[in-house]
């Protein structure tokens, strides 16, 4: 974002976001939307990690378009993000993240966003990142599916470097669907938590 289009009028805060590096693990419903919101907010250096391709049933909630079906999510998302900000510095990692390569892939980030879909992979990411990168904040999401009130989705700090977004309970394995509105609420919480961390906002009771 240029100075004219930035949402952040304070030059010091704008510079802080501009210098930040965020790694986004998963470019689906959460990750694709988080990436766009971070970029619109002035974060310009993103690592986008995903192995998958765009499918038609992604279009109901993910930041992709019909003419991108079949393309790698990392490349399709990068194309869209560069339409928002041609100056964005995007590093694409097109592979399925594993316990063997996770830490080396995200080590340079100032904040890590967990945006994958399975509980097993979420647990692996939380476990390894909080163990091996204890000084790097990790923002994870747990509980965003279904039709329950979006007001149940919140952001809280569960451990020193672990922030959790969600209602903690709504699980797609219980047959709950992923509704664009609730996914977007969770994505916005996740992006906002990352911005607040980068701006070094103090925790408050709302968290």
């Amino acid at each position, binding site marked *: 974002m240029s100075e004219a289009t930035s949402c952040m009028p304070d030059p010091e805060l704008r510079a802080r976001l501009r210098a930040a590096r965020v790694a986004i693990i998963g470019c689906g419903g959460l990750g694709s939307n988080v990436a766009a919101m971070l970029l619109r907010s002035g974060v310009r250096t993103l690592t986008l990690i995903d192995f998958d391709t765009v499918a038609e049933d992604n279009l109901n909630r993910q930041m992709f378009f019909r003419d991108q079906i079949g393309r790698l999510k990392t490349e399709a998302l990068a194309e869209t993000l560069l339409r928002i900000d041609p100056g964005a510095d995007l590093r694409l990692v097109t592979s399925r993240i594993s316990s063997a390569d996770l830490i080396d892939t995200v080590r340079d980030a100032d904040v890590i966003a967990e945006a994958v*879909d399975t509980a097993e992979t979420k647990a692996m990411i*939380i476990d390894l990142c*909080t163990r091996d990168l204890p000084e790097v904040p990790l923002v994870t999401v747990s509980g965003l599916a279904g039709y329950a009130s979006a007001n149940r989705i919140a952001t809280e700090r*569960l*451990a020193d470097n672990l922030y959790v977004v969600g209602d903690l*309970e709504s699980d*797609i*394995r219980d047959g709950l669907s992923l509704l664009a509105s609730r996914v977007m609420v969770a994505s916005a919480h996740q992006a906002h938590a990352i911005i607040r961390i980068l701006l070094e906002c103090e925790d408050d009771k709302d968290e």
Partner: protein
Amino acid sequence: MHVDVALFASLSTFQPDGAGGRHARAFELDAGTTIAQVIETLALPDQPRVVFVNSRHAAEDSELHEGDRLAIFPPVAGG
């Protein structure tokens, strides 16, 4: 020794009082008790989970100490 144990989300119903809720309960444990032994005693289901002691990462085979606060969190699917 005295240890506080907090179980989040679906795990909260496994607290010995059965009352649910995420607030920590006080446990009296033998010295040298490991996190894995607490998990076994509580009969927590075999599902993905992450474990913290005093807000820092902890391995399940590590021993607890007087005054520790153990928190166990089960992430759920969706993203």
